[in-house]
């Protein structure tokens, strides 16, 4: 709301409240005063009327007395009572008529006897009649009475009555009749609503009330409340007959506002008239009594309204004088707000608003100046930014060009990748690719199926957590990842060693065979490794069956061979009697053949075990020299047959080692046996044992046929026999060196040789000071042998 309306409203409401309060105060005060004044006026009136009435009554009683006290009339009536002659009556009537005409207020003068019969009357027609109406006069016939009585035509008349005496005796009752209007002259109306009326002791109107139609007299009842007060006064008067009726009424006490016979609010005063037992009541409408106050209020209201109108105009003028500059200032601010800094508010008044306006104009000027400065700076910077933006745009275009190239390259790469993916996923073997951090970057469905993980789970993880390879029968369940590490470190394709298992998600072990190939980046750097592996459970199952078959077969073969051996031995030892020399030699040959067959069976069994990785060690503390010496001692009888000398030379301190003694003996025996078997007659075998860099080296040098170059790389293969060895009809299974190599490597050692065909061979066995140990895994401990 604008200030001007606020000010206007505040002062306006103050004005209205002021006028309302003062109007109310004025009205209530003045109406109270007026009521009091009017009430006092009513008192005056009632007193005045009372006196008037009282004198009227007294006057009329006096007039009546003038008539009744006439001696002539009294004598005539006395005579008439004793002689009721028409003459007497006529004489009396003439006297009465005289009185009527001289007193002229009276309508009729009548004399009645005690029985109520009209004796004589100015109204000659009523003479001799008896009327109940006159009983009232007879009730108090000795007293003067005043009364209003309706005649036979129901017209009320005023009567005054009194006794007619003759020599101390009442001889009749005289009364006069007057029209009621005589009383109206005394009561009557005043002002606009003022009236006075009389009521009888029962409350009936005795005079015509102002506001009722004619005929109300003695028919309608007067105002009840004021009449009741009048009755109170009558009671007081009856207890003290000397009491002045005028003083009876408490004139100082304002009796209040009553409802009169019309139901209008009136103020009234009363007086009790003892002479007639009437009540005189004077009243006026309250509205008239306070009409001056209303007029005053009306003029006051007019004045107030005029004041308010003047106020509106005046305040509008004054307020706009204050608010106009503020509005002007406001408009100016709005214009400036919209950006027009050239606008001037320019209010030249000397008041605060003028000062404010001028300060504001100054401020706008300052803003304008600083804005101009900023604009200059902004323009400079914008120019700079635009230049930079242009450079950036050029760069962006260049980058976009490059990106387009990259995009097309990417597409080609993507296509290549899709192709590779398709190939990898369609390969029947498990395939996965790891980066140089060993995290899986690609894996095919077969590999996922085998390990039991989803592609989502596998990708990006260390491959060892997803594809856990272990060595079969490893009691420590260590992760076997050598082949991958080697592929990455050497950059060469690596075969996974035999007897590798994949431990899948549920801990199940799947025997696998696999290889790892390094991934080479463009610059030849190794960026990862591809591993291909396949489930070899079936092959392994077949292997196992094969081994079991071999195991059973070897047992079944050994049993007859073994019993043959012992039986032949008994024959040779003469346990059943000395054999002839020739038979003994034959039996000896059979014995040797039998032994060889037993060895062959044992070798076959060993090989099948080595094939399955089921080599179990029984390591004991062993002196290598002792083992060699024993083997040499065993070999000497055979060597002697070919006249071959065996020399053992140990240099330095050879330590004892923890090794499977039986296998070590088997190895030495094999090597020694070869050195003798493939040696020439009269040859020699040199066994040299040395210890260097934590390794025991055993060289066995022979002077035999040597190994042809073509056979050198197959020498340690299973069942391989060198071409010259076969040709030379030496006996052998081709398993010995295979076993030697297998055992040597199982200890972490090696076997190698130098040889020249025809120039002898030197086999070098190297065993580490602490040979590796192999134990049976639990699942193979109790392998069944069903025969």
């Amino acid at each position, binding site marked *: 709301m604008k200030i001007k309306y606020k000010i206007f409203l505040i002062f306006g409401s103050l004005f209205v409240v002021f006028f309302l309060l003062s109007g109310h105060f004025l009205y209530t005060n003045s109406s109270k005063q007026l009521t009091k004044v009017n009430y006092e006026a009513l008192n005056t009136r009632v007193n005045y009327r009372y006196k008037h009435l009282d004198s009227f009554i007294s006057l009329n009683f006096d007039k009546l007395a003038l008539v009744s006290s006439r001696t002539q009339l009294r004598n005539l009536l006395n005579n008439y009572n004793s002689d009721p002659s028409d003459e007497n009556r006529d004489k009396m009537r003439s006297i009465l008529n005289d009185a009527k005409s001289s007193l002229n207020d009276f309508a009729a003068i009548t004399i009645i006897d005690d029985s109520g019969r009209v004796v004589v009357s100015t109204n000659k027609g009523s003479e001799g009649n008896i009327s109940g109406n006159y009983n009232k006069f007879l009730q108090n016939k000795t007293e003067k009475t005043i009364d209003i009585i309706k005649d036979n035509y129901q017209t009320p008349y005023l009567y005054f009555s009194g006794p007619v005496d003759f020599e101390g005796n009442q001889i009749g009752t005289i009364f006069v009749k007057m029209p009621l209007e005589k009383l109206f002259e005394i009561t009557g109306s005043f002002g606009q609503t003022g009236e006075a009326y009389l009521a009888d002791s029962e409350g009936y109107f005795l005079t015509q009330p102002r506001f009722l139609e004619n005929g109300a007299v003695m028919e309608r009842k007067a105002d009840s409340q004021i009449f009741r007060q009048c009755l109170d006064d009558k009671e007081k008067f009856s207890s003290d007959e000397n009491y002045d009726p005028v003083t009876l009424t408490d004139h100082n006490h304002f009796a209040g506002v009553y409802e009169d016979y019309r139901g209008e609010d009136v103020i009234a005063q009363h007086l009790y008239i003892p002479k007639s037992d009437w009540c005189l009541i004077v009243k006026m409408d309250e509205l008239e009594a306070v009409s001056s106050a209303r007029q005053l209020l009306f003029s006051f209201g007019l004045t107030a309204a005029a004041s308010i109108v003047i106020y509106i105009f005046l305040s509008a003028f004054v307020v706009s004088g204050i608010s106009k500059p503020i509005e002007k200032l406001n408009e100016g601010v709005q214009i400036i707000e919209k950006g027009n800094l050239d606008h001037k508010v320019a209010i030249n008044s000397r008041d605060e608003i003028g000062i404010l306006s001028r300060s504001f104009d100054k401020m706008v000027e300052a803003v304008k100046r600083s804005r101009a400065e900023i604009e200059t700076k902004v323009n400079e910077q914008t120019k700079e930014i635009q230049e930079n933006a242009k450079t950036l745009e050029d760069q962006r275009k260049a980058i976009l060009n490059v990106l387009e190239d990259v995009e097309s390259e990417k597409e080609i790469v993507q296509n290549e990748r899709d192709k590779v993916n398709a190939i990898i996923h369609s390969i029947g073997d498990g395939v996965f690719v790891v980066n140089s951090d060993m995290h899986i970057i690609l894996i095919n469905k077969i590999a996922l199926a085998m390990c039991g993980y989803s592609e989502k789970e596998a990708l990006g993880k260390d491959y060892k957590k997803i594809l856990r390879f272990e060595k079969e029968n490893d009691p420590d369940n260590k992760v076997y990842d050598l082949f991958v590490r080697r592929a990455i470190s050497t950059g060469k394709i690596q075969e996974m060693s035999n007897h590798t298992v994949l431990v899948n998600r549920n801990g199940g072990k799947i025997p696998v065979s696999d290889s790892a190939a390094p991934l080479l980046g463009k610059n030849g750097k190794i960026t990862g490794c591809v591993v291909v592996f396949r489930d070899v459970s079936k092959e392994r199952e077949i292997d196992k069956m094969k081994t079991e078959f071999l195991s059973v077969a070897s047992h079944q073969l050994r049993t007859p061979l073994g019993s043959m051996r012992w039986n032949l031995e*008994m024959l040779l030892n003469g346990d059943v009697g000395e054999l002839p020399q020739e038979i003994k030699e034959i039996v000896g040959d059979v014995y040797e053949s039998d032994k060889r067959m037993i060895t062959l069976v044992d070798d076959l069994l060993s090989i099948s075990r080595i094939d399955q990785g089921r080599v179990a060690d029984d390591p004991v503390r062993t002196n290598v020299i002792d083992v060699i010496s024993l083997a040499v001692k065993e070999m000497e009888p055979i060597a002697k047959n070919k006249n071959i000398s065996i020399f053992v030379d140990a240099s330095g301190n050879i330590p004892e080692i923890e090794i499977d003694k039986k296998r070590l003996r088997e190895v030495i025996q094999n090597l020694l046996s070869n050195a003798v078997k493939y040696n020439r007659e009269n040859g020699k075998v040199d066994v040299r044992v040395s210890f260097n860099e934590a390794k025991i080296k055993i060289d066995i040098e022979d002077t035999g046929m040597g190994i042809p170059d073509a056979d050198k790389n197959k020498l340690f293969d299973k069942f391989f026999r060198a071409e010259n060895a076969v040709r030379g009809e030496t006996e052998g299974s081709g398993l010995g060196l295979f076993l030697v190599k297998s055992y040597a490597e199982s200890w972490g050692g090696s076997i190698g040789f130098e040889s020249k065909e025809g120039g002898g061979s030197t086999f070098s066995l190297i065993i580490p000071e602490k040979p590796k140990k192999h134990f049976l895994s639990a699942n193979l401990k109790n392998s069944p042998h069903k025969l």
Partner: protein
Amino acid sequence: MMNKDNMDKKYILVAEDDKFYAGVYRRKLTAEGYEVEVVENGQKAIESVKKRKPDLLLLDLIMPVMDGFSTLGELRKDDDSKDMQIVVMSNLGQDEDIKKAKDLGANDYFVKSNYSLQEIIEKIKNYLQ
């Protein structure tokens, strides 16, 4: 106690189903001065041990009715025979078999075909000294 009757003669029980081996054992060991009884399966061996506890039991593994492993287990369960000397004489030569037999309580294990009769007799003599 029983061999008090035979005074110094040691009593060897042989469980061997192969009659050729059985023949060799009987002849050779008798010739070496031992009292020898040969039975052809494990069950009979147990029955025999219950009748008379031998100084040494030579136990074959692969036998009908009751094999050597079961026999070994049964005998070692019984208090009377738990300390008895039992040497397995079998042509099963796998590491697993040897380990199993030793775990069951065999005092020794010889693969018959790998030893000469003379060597075996030497070993038996060692056990009975």
